Each structure stands twice: as structure tokens, then as C-alpha cells.
């Protein structure tokens, strides 16, 4: 009979190429992922429709956690570290805290400042794993006579003089309004009238004025 003979082909495929691709992608994702910043102070931010992103450098971050404690930190940039050191030296001098240069260097390396001025020396001797919201009591802002945030913002303004500085306020959902107001007072006392508040991105609800504005393509930067 003249039936054509179908050649039996092996079903085994060479996986080498696919393996290469998989691991290439894997290394790409691992390398491009930024590790989440240390969560020593957990803060869950509210959501907003604000379209702009938080800048990465030249920022002074004021964190406000759920218990109303206030912390201060700066960007991760080398430049920001230098500024932080300058700030600490400035605060040290003006308030006669008696910090050694070694202690200032330690404080600069720590992720944030979260103690009253008088206790900065103690914070400088804390191990890094103890720098969290349970141990630190926060920068006092409670009453108008002892709002130490004013001093810190003043130092920040001095350190960033001549350059650009963004004040970033990162508040927790359940933080009470009065603490927030005290921080605003500290901003105002230093003539800093513009600041940003960290939020999570949310979609603009359909049918609202902003939604229509965005759809019409005439969206302006608010």
C-alpha cells in the first residue's frame, strides 16, 4: 500500500532558551524592585485623587503615627544625609545638647529622629533594631510652649538654604487633627507655607467635576 509514513518526532523541546528568558526576567524584577523602606513606624496613609508623586530627594518627612507621635526623617540621598548632619549640628549648638561628633554621625545614620531634644543623646546610643515606635516617644508638639517641631523645621530651612526643599507630611489615618494642627503651626512659624501630604492613589469617581475635567483633556495641575 502506498500510505505515506509520518515521521515520529520527539515531543521533547529544548528548555534552555526558555530557562534563560525566565531567569533574565527574574533578575530584572529583583534588581528593579526597590526594597520597601523600613517600617519601624507603621503608617497607613489615607487615599486621595492627587495626581502628583512624592519627590525622592531634598525632602523633609514629618511622620505622624496613629498614636499622635511625630518623627522626623530626610531623604535617602547622600545630599540629604549631609543636610541631616548639618541640621543636627545646628540644633545641637543652639540648644546646648552637648552631642559629640560621633553621636551626631550615629543619629545621621539612624532612619529618623523621634525623641525630645533633651533625649537625643540617648537615641544616639540605641541599637538600630530598637529605633521603632514602641521605644521612641516622638518629638513633642503637643503644647504651644514646647513645640519642638518649630526648632527642627527651622534647622531644616537653614540646612537647605539656597536649595530646594519639600516638606512632606506623612500622617496616619487615625491620627487626631490637633497634632496635625500643631505641625502646621511649626510650618507657619518658619514661614513655610507650602507642603505636601503623602497619600495613596485613588481613582477619580466617575461623574464628578474633576472627572469631567480630566476627560475633557483640560486637566490643570491643582
Amino acid at each position: 500500500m502506498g500510505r505515506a509514513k509520518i515521521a515520529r518526532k520527539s515531543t521533547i523541546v529544548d528548555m534552555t532558551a526558555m530557562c534563560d528568558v525566565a531567569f533574565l526576567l527574574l533578575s530584572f524584577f529583583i534588581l528593579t524592585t526597590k526594597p520597601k523602606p523600613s517600617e519601624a513606624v507603621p503608617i497607613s496613609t489615607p487615599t486621595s485623587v492627587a495626581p502628583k508623586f512624592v519627590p525622592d530627594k531634598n525632602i523633609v518627612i514629618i511622620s505622624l503615627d496613629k498614636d499622635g507621635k511625630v518623627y522626623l526623617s530626610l531623604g535617602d540621598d547622600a545630599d540629604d544625609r549631609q543636610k541631616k548632619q548639618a541640621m543636627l549640628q545646628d540644633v545641637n549648638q543652639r540648644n546646648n545638647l552637648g552631642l559629640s561628633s560621633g553621636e551626631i554621625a550615629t543619629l545621621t545614620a539612624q532612619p529618623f529622629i523621634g525623641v525630645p531634644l533633651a533625649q537625643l543623646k540617648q537615641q544616639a546610643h540605641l541599637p538600630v533594631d530598637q529605633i521603632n515606635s514602641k521605644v521612641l516617644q516622638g518629638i513633642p508638639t503637643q503644647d504651644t510652649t514646647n513645640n519642638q517641631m518649630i526648632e527642627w523645621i527651622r534647622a531644616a530651612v537653614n540646612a537647605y538654604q539656597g536649595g530646594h526643599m519639600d516638606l512632606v507630611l506623612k500622617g496616619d489615618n487615625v491620627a487626631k487633627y490637633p497634632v496635625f494642627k500643631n505641625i502646621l503651626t511649626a510650618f507657619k512659624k518658619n514661614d513655610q507655607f507650602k507642603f505636601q501630604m503623602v497619600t495613596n492613589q485613588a481613582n477619580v469617581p466617575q461623574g464628578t467635576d474633576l472627572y469631567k475635567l480630566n476627560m475633557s483633556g483640560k486637566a490643570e495641575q491643582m
Partner: protein
Amino acid sequence: MAEMDTSGGGHKKKGPGVKKGKKLSTRVDLTPMVDLGFLLITFFVFTTTITRATAMHLALPDDKVKPEDQNKIKQSGALTILLGKDNNVFYYEGELAPDGSNFKASNFKDIRDEIIRKKQQADTNLVVVIKPNDESTYKNFIDILDEMSINVVKRYAVVDISPVEDKYVRLTEGEPAPQTDAATTPAAGAK
């Protein structure tokens, strides 16, 4: 010399007593490795937070500006929103009536309709005055500012709550009117 003998062999005759070593294939089945690779990729893709934090910009007024230089709010276009505890929202239009008759309770869902209604009614005169009391949270404050940008309200102001308004808020929330709290609101000027 240095290279391995990978040819099939056969032409080289070995002695009769020498056994020929069995040739093993150098091919490895890479399927499990590919599986693992893609599993890890999926893991990293899902655990990576794609959303970057956004920033809401806010400009504060300068307190040093003299009262006579400040803008007066037209009462016809004023909508005052008060924030209380437990996400309560209250509002009144224009000036607060002495008996509190125009003081209304609302919530974060309904306040948008109220803002939209007032916006259509007052048109360019619209000014929203936001007054959070001491019990309100940071989230409430952000939410109401967000409401301003959602409804494209161009003019709004954040003002300290006055003792009278605070009393109404607390009364509506079912709390006795505070005696001490009104005194601790330092910047709140009496009406």
C-alpha cells in the same frame, strides 16, 4: 589533546578485555527549572507595590496678614463643613443661625452632593470653610480636602472651629457640651 573525545567511538579498537564506558547524555531536563523561574517571577511581580505614594499639595495662609487685608467671605456663597468624631460631618450654609436651625448632619458619602448643589447655586461666590474639631482624624481632613479637588472647588479655607460650633457638633454626637475643651482651642476666636 585537551578536548574530550565525544565522538561515538567504535573505530578505535580497544583490547578485547576492555569494557566500553556507557555514554551518558549531557542533556538535562530544564522544565522544572523553568517552572521555578516563572514561579519566582510571579512572586516578585505580585509582591512589588506598583503604586507609588502620591502627594497632595496644600498651601497655608500667612497668619501675619492683617485682618483688613484678608478676603471677606460672601455669606451667600459660604458653605461651612465641620468634622467631628467617628467620621461625622456637619455643615451649614452662610452664617450659623443663633438657634442652630441651619446646622445639618451629614456624612462623607452625602457631603459631595451637598457641595455640588452649593457649587451650582453659588457659582463663583462659592467658598468652602473647613472646620475640623479636636476629635476628627487626619483621614477626615484629607478626605474633605480630596472632596474639594474632586469637585473642583477653587476656594476653600481651613479654619479653627469656634466654641459655639464645637458645642453643636458635640451635642449632635450625643455628648454633653464641653466646658474645658472650648477653652483649650487656643486659636479659635469667639464669633
